[in-house]
């Protein structure tokens, strides 16, 4: 209890003052319903508050990306491209893609552990645009994706990454990556709502993400791979995103990769957003 008054319970005046309570009850008219965007933004704010209260959550978008850039640059650089500096020019635009794609996985885990809490009953009983809960979460997650991308870019530039496309190219590449990551996240939200535990969500998404990110052109040129692997790599969306990211950052857009990325993004949202919403609706 908030008060420390030691009086017995029967006679003590409760801290609920009738008059204040009556005033609080009579002083509100119902405002007009919030727009879908306003409701989504409110949920994004909720997600950001949680980060504010538990900042350790940002570990996966700061420490891990730095480790990835350092490890892969110095492990593979000399062997694959002759020097770490040369390798970094090709690796960095792609490893940002790989890492941000990996981080999208946490979205599904977060939803899975969040959705069973009582507060979701309240959210569901509100007259708001129903997808707002999930869109808001994804909006906040997009900020985390952006953080990871920026952290990696800064580390890369310190190590000697020099994008030919200049700041505009880098911003365009990061923007495209965020669109793709937002779209990819819907896969995990659908999964997060269907599976029982955050652990099973992680296992499932790892199973999808490992082959997707490694069997791509992120680390090496696929030319030396066996034919069937090349076929997979060539049609892997991560390959398209990595290629488009390289092209944008280095200012040389000369393949349909960007179009592929937009197509994949649209397709992922069109398929998995409705699946997510159906799972959200069935979560009862």
């Amino acid at each position, binding site marked *: *209890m*908030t*008060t420390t008054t030691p009086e017995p*319970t029967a006679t*003590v005046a*409760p*801290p*609920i*003052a*009738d008059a*204040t*309570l*009556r*005033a*609080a*009850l*009579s*002083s*509100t008219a*119902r*405002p*007009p*319903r*919030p727009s879908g965007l*306003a*409701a989504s*933004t*409110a949920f994004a*704010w*909720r997600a950001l*508050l*949680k980060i504010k*209260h*538990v900042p350790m959550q940002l570990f996966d978008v700061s420490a891990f990306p730095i480790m990835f850039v350092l490890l892969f640059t110095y492990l593979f650089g000399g062997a694959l491209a002759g020097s770490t500096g040369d390798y970094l020019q090709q690796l960095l635009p792609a490893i940002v893609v790989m890492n941000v794609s990996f981080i999208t996985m946490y979205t599904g885990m977060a939803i899975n552990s969040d959705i*069973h*809490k*009582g*507060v*979701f*009953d*309240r*959210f*569901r*009983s*509100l*007259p*708001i645009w129903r997808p707002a809960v999930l869109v808001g979460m994804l909006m906040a997650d997009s900020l985390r994706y952006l953080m990871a991308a920026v952290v990696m870019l800064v580390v890369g530039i310190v190590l000697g990454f020099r994008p030919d496309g200049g700041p505009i190219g880098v911003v365009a590449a990061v923007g495209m990556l965020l669109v793709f990551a937002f779209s990819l996240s819907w896969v995990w939200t659908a999964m997060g709502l269907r599976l029982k535990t955050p652990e099973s969500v992680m296992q499932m998404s790892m199973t999808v993400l490992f082959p997707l990110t490694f069997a791509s052109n992120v680390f090496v040129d696929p030319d030396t791979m066996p034919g069937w692997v090349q076929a997979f790599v060539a049609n892997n969306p991560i390959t398209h995103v990595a290629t488009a990211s390289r092209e944008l950052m280095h200012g040389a857009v000369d393949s349909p990769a960007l179009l592929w990325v937009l197509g994949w993004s649209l397709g992922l949202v069109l398929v998995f957003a409705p699946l997510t919403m159906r799972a959200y609706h*069935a*979560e*009862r």
Partner: protein
Amino acid sequence: MEPDGTLAIETHGLKKHFGETKAVDGVDLRVRAGTVYGVLGPNGAGKTTTIRMLATLIDPTEGSATVLGHDVVARADAVRSSVSLTGQFASVDEELTGHENLVLLGLLLGFRRKDAGVRADELLEAFGLAEASDRLVSTYSGGMRRRLDIAASIVVTPDLLFLDEPTTGLDPRSRNQVWDIVRVLVAAGTTVLLTTQYLEEADQLADRIAIIDHGRIIAEGTSAELKASVGAGVLRVCVGDAARRAEAADLVATVLGVPVELESDPAALSARGADPERVPGALTALSAAGVVVTEFALAPPSLDEVFLALTGHAADTTDTTDPDAGEVAGGAPQEDAA
């Protein structure tokens, strides 16, 4: 049951089955606007499932329900616009502060940021939570969470408030505070549907009470009507000299005209279904016979006794055939069965 005035809730043959389990199995409710309606029953009786259907969280398997004139399935959005739900397990966000919780609700209801903040402060003040305003809810006591939960339900005053076991697990003082809040809400014109496991709570707050068991309503009426139907409860007597218990039992049985049970305590006896008007006579008889009495208590009927009287079986919460005994376990456990 002859309700006059507008009905806030009306259900016909409402059912919710999760596979084989019949959580709610044909419930007919008529709740008049502006009243408090109590749904009384043990864990797993179907109370929470009923509330979840009425609050549009789950669709009925069969039957229909109208809330404030709107069908809960066809016009779910209209229902959501005029009701609020306080779930059995605090429907507030533990990882946010009390103030942030209420601001979030305010934003979701359409307030602008500044107005939402003002409204949050006002409610925290009214509910005695001003000092805890900037603490994470995870540090709140059970009573504080409940109050915040109810505050969150009235950021915009709802026409109808669902309170699912509002005082389960609360200490008596917090319970009294919640009761006070409910009374003020009702005085301000809100209709309240509350579920409870406690007869006393229904007695204190509800204008009418439905007793629910195994997904069905087994009795309905005012508190007085229900009490009359189950008798006056239990008279418990302890005698000063255990050797005279048998004699005392005979006297009590004769005066009250009901069977008397001898308890395991060698000095204690009890009589179920004692007519309150005859009880003073029993004390007089004991006194006239010179039997020293150390305890003489007429307890109101407990939920167990109501159940016993109405169903012939005890309100046994461990019953394995219980449709949604999972109600005790977590926020929304029925999903697993669905």
